[in-house]
């Protein structure tokens, strides 16, 4: 077991490909995406209800090395600034496994 970081991003599904590209450029190549997430966002003081019925959110999870967090933030923050969405980071322990599928 060793320490890694968990990145959670909730954003509009339209931004999904941009965000995954951003993660990729920051060196985080693994991710999992859950679609059809509904929700309600909050910005600053005012409550804005943007639950656009047809524009659903996605929930992106990516586990990465602690040292990858800085580049990730650099790549993701401009997207969040532009389009909205939230990003959170936490500590988790990875259970290492050696998958026997021969890498190509």
């Amino acid at each position, binding site marked *: 077991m060793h320490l890694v970081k968990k990145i959670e991003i909730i954003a*509009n599904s*339209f931004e999904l490909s941009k965000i995954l590209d951003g993660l990729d450029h920051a060196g985080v190549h693994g991710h999992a995406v859950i679609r*059809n997430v509904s929700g309600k966002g909050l910005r600053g003081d005012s409550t*804005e*209800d*943007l639950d*656009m*019925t*047809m*524009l659903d959110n996605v929930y992106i999870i990516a586990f990465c090395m602690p040292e990858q967090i800085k580049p990730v933030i650099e790549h993701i923050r401009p997207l969040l600034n*532009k*389009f*909205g969405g939230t990003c959170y980071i936490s500590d988790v322990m990875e259970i290492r496994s050696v998958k026997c599928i021969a890498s190509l």
Partner: protein
Amino acid sequence: MDASLIVSNILNPPILFFFLGMTAVLVKSDLEIPAPVPKLFSLYLLLSIGFKGGVELVKSGVTQEVILTILAAMLMACFVPLYTFFILRLKLDTYDAAAIAATYGSISAVTFITASAFLSELGMAFDGYMVAALALMESPAIIVGLILVNLFTADQGDRDFSWSEVLKEAFLNSSVFLLVGSLLIGVLTGEHGWEVLSPFTQSMFYGVLTFFLLDMGLVAARRLKDLQKTGAFLISFAILIPILNAGIGLLLAKLIGMSQGNALLFAVLSASASYIAVPAAMRLTVPEANPSLYVSTALAVTFPFNIIVGIPLYLYGINLLWG
């Protein structure tokens, strides 16, 4: 006459199921159409209408009439966002004004489909190439909206999106793509394709539309509460501008000599506002604009207005102009 048209329109299953959906939200029933079903139904409707349009287009051929209709469609799609932008600027900032203008310049396929179902029931003919007009009117407003934002805001230079991305969004979004693709397949397979596919695309069509409008009723009613924030100006806009656009559309239709059925569809296209493709594009390219303004007015005011009052109203106009 007008009232009897409205009543005969309202007493149709699709409209009544739309009301049923709205009622469900208002009385807080837990009725809901689960997540990918409405999406499936909208893909089905686009595929069916596109395919049918293609099959009929190949029958009619590309006549002068077709070309005139398509030119008129393009004209409306560019003119509407331009003139409404300046009306909207009276009360709103450039971003919101441009986004709403683009929304009303584009079209709602479901409104078109509801109108065509209404025509079928009245036994009024319309041509397959109106589907081509439908497809062509979806995208231009997105481009016009962006040009307006670029012209009238300080940060002209530094909007950081590529035009290629915008054009992709405008012309390759899933509804335009599926509609145009199905139309082409209709053209390619013609009468033979129709024979094999119509048991699917035709016989379930009305039923799927009915089911879909049930969901639209739910969605529109959930949006109603947004209207408080929207204000009286936008609500009036969302009712008066469609009527005005339909009027302009009808005059243009009369001018180029469309049939009555086609004219109704053209009026409906002019009057309708996009609540899927344009909002998606605007969110991407004008994130400064407030989605609840452009989605809610299009979805909770203009859409119900058009399918309930608008369609029979515009038909009444046709009776006056053509009759």
